[in-house]
């Protein structure tokens, strides 16, 4: 057995055991409600807005995100909050106000199905297959990371960790379907907040609060060649790419992250949108992203601020804090090292449980999105279409959904071993994901707001956008790239200072290309759908939503204004 980083005591193990007992228990209790495919795959559209809302951001708050963002806190400081404020909130507000009525109101059961209703079969097929493949791969990679972490941190065998965590995820998603996944995401949200809170307090205590943090950072940041307050501000040094560690100018952040990447992710990724589609009413579905937006804006204080504290600790003589591994800084270790540094037995178990929980709920989220797309958009569309017997169908597709869950987990396990063989697969997947998502947003956006958009236009737009993204990636590299996975595999026409800048611009080009191609092809092809068929799918043909019967503070518009004002205030406070 390898030397473990943590030596857990009985109390830590008890906390972990109790948590996972509850996780499985929820699946067990929900099992009796899973009578048909609709209950299993769509949670019967019965979730209250706050439950869906917390699940909505919790799906995104996977362990890889927590580890990555704490690391980014140490690398880029408060600039990382761009991923939480400008890079998330406007997109979530847009989804709530403008897009959710069509996703939810159209009665589509998935994003691919919306594409089928709005455009045609081939557009749906393309999206469904890509989504299904990418989702199980993503879930496999997060399993791999989890097993690796358990090996390193707890000293558990890699294979045992992998199969054990897969078994837990399988058990509760097989039993309770999407409801079970959503409930556990909410549970995970609270355990993460409570588990990481002590680090925030102890960290800020050690460096002397926010002002102490600023003071101790100044010399460290100056040594890196930036102005002393670069790591505690967000927009101040984005006038030039060279002035901030992210290496991106303000317009790159605004358009690349704030517009293309975030709209592509939050508004079209079925994994995320599925949570809002499970809400109990149109109002609840529209409020889901907005309720999620409130904790989303505050998460930086939970995971980025400790990352910045870690940077101070690394440079403090005698602290003994390091993220060095085999002579290289491994920023993904930041959060683990902070847990080790600050937490005594007891709360340590809580912190580790929080991390493990977020890994597993990330996998469960992927698996529950996969089985829906597989069952409705692939199996029901191409293998066994619905019959006249609705009741028998509901039972049949429930069975298929359950089998798809087992299948999804097994493929994920295979993908996890694959990830172990190819170290770069994670980078590779993320790159491909952004290449698929950015064009998808352009196409769905045009489809929702321009009734002239045709199926051919959408299909060719998706492919064209992806192709342009590939081309851009093949022609550019981030500075210091050593592998072709990072780009430049055609030839090197341009070098970006950092990888993030390259990602932003890939997405911007892909989205713009998809939009232009879709418009041009749409104008050149005939609209196959009648206005009647497009009612409820396109903005101009759908009656406007009236909110008069809803109490003012539960109205989507009220919440949206509140969320936007809160974002502006936070941005000004940390300008």
């Amino acid at each position: 057995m390898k030397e473990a980083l943590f030596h857990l005591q009985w109390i830590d193990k008890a906390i972990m055991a109790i948590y996972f007992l509850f996780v499985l228990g929820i699946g067990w209790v929900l099992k009796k409600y899973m009578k048909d495919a609709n209950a299993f795959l769509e949670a019967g559209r019965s979730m209250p807005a706050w439950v869906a809302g917390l699940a909505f951001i919790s799906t995104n708050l996977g362990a890889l995100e927590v580890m990555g963002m704490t690391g980014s806190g140490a690398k880029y400081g408060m600039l990382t909050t761009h991923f939480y404020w400008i890079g998330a909130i406007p997109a979530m507000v847009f989804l709530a106000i403008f897009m959710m009525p069509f996703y939810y109101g159209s009665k589509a059961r998935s994003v691919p199905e919306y594409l089928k209703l709005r455009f045609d079969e081939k557009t749906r097929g393309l999206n469904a297959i890509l989504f299904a493949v990418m989702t199980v791969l993503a879930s496999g990679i997060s399993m791999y990371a989890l097993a690796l972490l358990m090996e390193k941190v707890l000293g558990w065998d890699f294979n045992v960790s992998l199969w054990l965590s897969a078994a837990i995820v399988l058990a509760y998603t097989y039993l309770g379907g999407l409801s079970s996944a959503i409930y556990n995401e909410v549970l995970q949200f609270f355990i993460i907040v409570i588990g990481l809170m002590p680090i925030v307090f102890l960290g800020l205590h050690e460096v002397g609060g926010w002002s102490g943090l600023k003071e101790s950072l100044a010399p460290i940041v100056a040594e890196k060649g930036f102005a002393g307050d670069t790591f505690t501000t967000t927009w101040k040094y984005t006038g030039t790419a060279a002035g901030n560690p992210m290496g991106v100018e303000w317009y790159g952040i605004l358009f690349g992250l704030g517009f293309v990447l975030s709209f592509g992710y939050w508004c079209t990724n079925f994994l995320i949108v599925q949570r809002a589609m499970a809400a109990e009413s149109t109002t609840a579905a529209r409020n889901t992203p907005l309720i999620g937006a409130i904790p989303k804006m505050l998460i930086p204080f939970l995971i980025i601020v400790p990352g910045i504290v870690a940077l101070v600790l690394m440079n403090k003589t005698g602290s003994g804090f390091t993220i060095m591994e085999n002579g290289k800084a491994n920023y993904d270790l930041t959060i683990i090292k902070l847990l080790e540094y600050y937490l005594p037995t007891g709360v340590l178990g809580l912190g580790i449980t929080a991390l493990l929980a977020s890994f597993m709920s990330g996998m469960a989220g992927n698996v529950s999105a996969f089985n829906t797309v597989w069952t409705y958009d692939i199996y029901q569309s191409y293998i066994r279409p619905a019959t006249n017997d609705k009741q028998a169908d509901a039972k049949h597709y429930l069975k298929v959904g359950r089998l798809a869950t087992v299948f999804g987990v097994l493929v994920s396990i295979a993908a996890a071993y694959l990830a172990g063989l190819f170290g770069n697969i994670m980078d590779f997947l993320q790159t491909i994901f952004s290449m698929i998502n950015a064009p998808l947003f352009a196409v769905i956006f045009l489809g929702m707001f321009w009734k002239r958009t045709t199926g051919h236009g959408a299909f060719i737009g998706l492919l064209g956008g992806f192709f342009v993204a590939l081309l851009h990636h093949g022609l550019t590299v981030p500075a210091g790239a050593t592998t072709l996975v990072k780009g430049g595999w055609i030839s090197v026409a341009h070098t970006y200072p950092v990888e993030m800048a390259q990602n932003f611009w890939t997405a911007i080009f892909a989205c713009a290309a998809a939009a232009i191609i879709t418009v041009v092809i749409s104008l050149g092809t005939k609209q196959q759908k009648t206005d009647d068929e497009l009612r409820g799918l396109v903005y101009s043909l759908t009656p406007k939503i009236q909110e008069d019967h809803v109490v003012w503070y539960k109205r989507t518009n009220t919440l949206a204004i509140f969320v936007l004002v809160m974002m502006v205030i936070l941005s000004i406070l940390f300008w």
Partner: protein
Amino acid sequence: MLDIRIPIGLLFTVLGVLVTAYGIITNSDTELYTKSFQYNVNLWSGLVMLVFGVVMLLTVKKKKT
């Protein structure tokens, strides 16, 4: 459908009691709390969880009556 506040409330009440109790038992263990600058973080985290769990359970009861 199962009200989600029941499992959340139960989980955090149980964890709260456990961690609070551990915090009380270890209150004088200065070595254990060196890392956390002698703050008894177990006691505090435990109490937070306990209060949160109980509040969750109380809101469920209110709705039923």
